């Protein structure tokens, strides 16, 4: 599925999640929590819809794992809060989130709240690729 096709599908699911009309413009740059007013339940709802629509699984902690990559857990977080290196990794992953959005202390359990719509689209494409690789 191409990036733009994924975006259109994700945007439609964002509208469904927030019960918005089709006329509401959703753009890749919008931050789910800060621009669209997402709550934690909205995020869960959106992920459920994405999993159903694309037949992929996005388990709890997916974003955390993607940001951490091959970094040791102890170098990624300290007492649950991202280290400087962890922060760097997260900001590289969420490169389209404006830097001032990230607080001084980023708790590892809060990462989804810094996502743009575009970041979710990238996550979906990553999972689709992963799924296709497994099935081929």
């Amino acid at each position, binding site marked *: 599925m191409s990036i733009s096709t994924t975006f259109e599908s994700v945007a439609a699911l964002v509208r469904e999640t927030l019960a918005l009309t089709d006329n509401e413009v959703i753009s890749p740059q919008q931050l789910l929590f800060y621009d669209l007013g997402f709550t934690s*339940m909205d995020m869960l709802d959106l992920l459920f819809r994405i999993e159903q629509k694309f037949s992929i699984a996005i388990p709890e902690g997916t974003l955390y794992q993607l940001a951490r990559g091959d970094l040791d857990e102890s170098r990624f977080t300290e007492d649950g809060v991202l280290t400087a290196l962890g922060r760097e990794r997260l900001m590289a992953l969420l490169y389209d989130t404006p830097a001032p959005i990230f607080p001084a202390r980023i708790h590892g359990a809060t990462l989804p709240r810094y996502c743009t719509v575009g970041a979710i689209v990238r996550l979906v494409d990553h999972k689709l690729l992963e799924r296709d690789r497994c099935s081929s």
Partner: protein
Amino acid sequence: MNFNPDWSQKDRVAVITGATGYLGRVLSRGFAEAGATLVLTSRRQEALDQLANELALPAERISTVAADLTEISAGEQIIAAALKKAGRIDTLVISAGTLADALIAGLTDEAFARVHEVNVQGAFRLLRAGLRPMILQRSGSVVVVSSTAAHRPNVGQAAYAASKAALEMIIRVAARETAGRGIRINGVAPGLLTGGMAARIIDEAADRALAAIPMGRLGEAGEVAPVVLFLASPMSSYITGQVWCIDGGLTA
């Protein structure tokens, strides 16, 4: 506002766990007679088959799933089977439970853990799995069977009472979390019923408990089922996060 009492469960899908127990059987019959499509679960397939035969519903209105709630995947398995059968879940009744009565000084780790594994973890996993389709469909009602033991401590019931108290807090938290999604989560807390867990309470404790019931008698499953049906119906559309004691005044 017009008020139209409507007990009908027609075109609604109800998943009932613990369906072959004393209360579960009456609940299953109640939902069946109200017109619901049933997905009944219990640990033993033979007991489910027998119950299904007794209910004698058309095949499209009933299915059974044998599952043990102590299995980690049981909740997902039950919900997946229900969705496969009916495509949606309108009501989830969590009625499965167990107890292990003993004085704390003699209560084993294993007995304590087993009661919590069924009554708390098992119920939690089932609730978690059931909420997913309800969130997506923006509607649903969950009714959890608790116990007055969660409200009124009984000697020898540390494991059971603690598990039901934990379950009631899960009900209240879940109700708050999902109210905005059109989902209502409530509980019923039966007191001592003639054929329920009371039958397993040692005689002396049962006598003491009976004396404490203002109505002076044990309850019947048929006195609990209407409340569950009410909480599952749109008639209770403004009720969520509540646990109703049905106990002959025991906790009054």
